């Protein structure tokens, strides 16, 4: 667990983009050594050139060393992260002879370690038995690679069960796991099949009104009017939302009950009159 941690800290400042952090360093340094930097500013602000030239400057000026050290290391690390994710390690080595080497070797070590320790890792996908990539976890707590689970769900579209415990499992019912540096590693949209996005549900509002006796699904209505039209208006309630039913036990509930009974009898009388007349 030691090594991945180090890797994480190395790639930590990726939230700041490379360009912005390098430019901030630039302005810092310009105030100390304008002459040295005038030439460089006019040059195209390629990311490589700015970082590789910043590093020696920061070390040469002791007063600024702390700030610029931090900034330069920030930039180099964030580039490393981006470049690694793009898979262009060769570019990285060529581009940063001085700044990138430390972090590069670190992440190389990390990769090697990953390869070696994958066998005895606890975090194995239950399907491919490798360390889970694009990990998702089911509601029953079983870990899978998303591509593996997706393929299994496609295999039996009408019987979606957790391979381990046969609990119900579905695309909406799995939770993606994001490690600390997983978000910038790759765009999930480039993945086929895409991993389901994380869901965040709002907490339930404070309950103001507890449930109703009949629930919402049941209502009866009667109308009096011209025969066919009355039927239409009473049975198809367009548009208007129904008011909530009253609580069981309250006086309003009692009133409603007696009223509805009254109307029921009235309706029965009317219908029977229609038949017999």
């Amino acid at each position, binding site marked *: 667990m030691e090594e991945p941690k180090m890797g994480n800290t190395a790639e930590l400042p990726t939230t700041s983009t490379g360009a912005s952090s390098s430019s901030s360093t630039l302005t810092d340094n310009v105030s100390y050594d304008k002459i040295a930097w005038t030439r460089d500013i006019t040059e195209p602000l390629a990311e490589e050139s700015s970082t590789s030239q910043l590093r020696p400057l920061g070390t040469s000026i002791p007063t600024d060393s702390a700030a610029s050290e931090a900034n330069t290391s920030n930039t180099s690390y964030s580039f490393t992260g981006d470049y690694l994710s793009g*898979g262009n390690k060769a570019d990285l080595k060529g581009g940063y002879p001085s700044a990138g080497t430390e972090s590069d070797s670190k992440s190389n070590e990390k990769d090697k370690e990953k390869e070696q320790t994958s066998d005895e890792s606890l975090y194995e996908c239950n*399907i491919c038995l490798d360390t889970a990539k694009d990990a998702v976890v089911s509601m029953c707590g079983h870990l899978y690679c998303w591509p593996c689970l997706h393929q299994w769900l496609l295999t039996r579209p009408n019987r979606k069960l957790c391979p381990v415990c046969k609990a119900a499992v579905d695309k909406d019912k799995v939770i993606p796991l994001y490690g600390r540096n997983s978000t910038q590693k790759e765009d999930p949209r480039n*993945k086929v099949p895409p991993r389901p996005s994380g869901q965040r549900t709002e907490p339930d509002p404070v309950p103001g009104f507890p449930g109703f006796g009949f629930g919402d699904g049941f209502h009866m209505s009667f109308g009096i009017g011209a025969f066919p039209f009355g039927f239409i208006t009473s049975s198809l309630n367009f548009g208007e939302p129904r008011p909530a039913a009253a609580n069981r036990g309250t006086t309003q509930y009692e009133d409603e009950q007696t009223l509805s009974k009254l109307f029921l009898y009235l309706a029965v009388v009317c219908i029977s009159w229609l038949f017999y007349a």
Partner: protein
Amino acid sequence: MLKLFKKPKDKIPKSEIITEPKEPKTPPVSKCGKPLQLDNSRWERRLHKELMSLIKEPPPGVTIDTESVQQNLSEWKINIKGFEGTLYEGEDFQLLFKFNNKYPFDSPEVTFIGTNIPVHPHVYSNGHICLSILTEDWSPALSVQSVCLSIASMLSSCREKKRPPDNTIYVKTCNKNPKKTKWWYHDDSV
């Protein structure tokens, strides 16, 4: 009691229907240009892993014929012993596992082979086994090891050595591949 239905021949076997839509036609390419791991190498990788663990820590009474595996990774011969205290004590059986490239999403084809086929109400004399995890109850979380264990347990819990009641007619009419039989699983006692 054990019965089964033969499927009409014109129908595509179930195992092929259900596995049809899962392979994308063009291999997806990730950002760095390498194909994503959805190809055939994955099932080989998993088989290798299972093989290693089976050689390292085999379940009791189970040995693997490593020579057969070296020749062909998709066909394993596994020897299984009748446990002590059961009807099959002292007997040796051989199982043949056949994997296709949809493994582990598709179940392996498992049959008894060789001269000694256990006399068991769920094992036909041609080696076919009536076991739900080999077809519809298969799950990719199962492994060769767990299948061996299930078969060993099935043998061990047998009370009476006899063939399935429809043995003769099934053996005459069945397909070579037991997965093309529509099995009817209804007896959990053995």
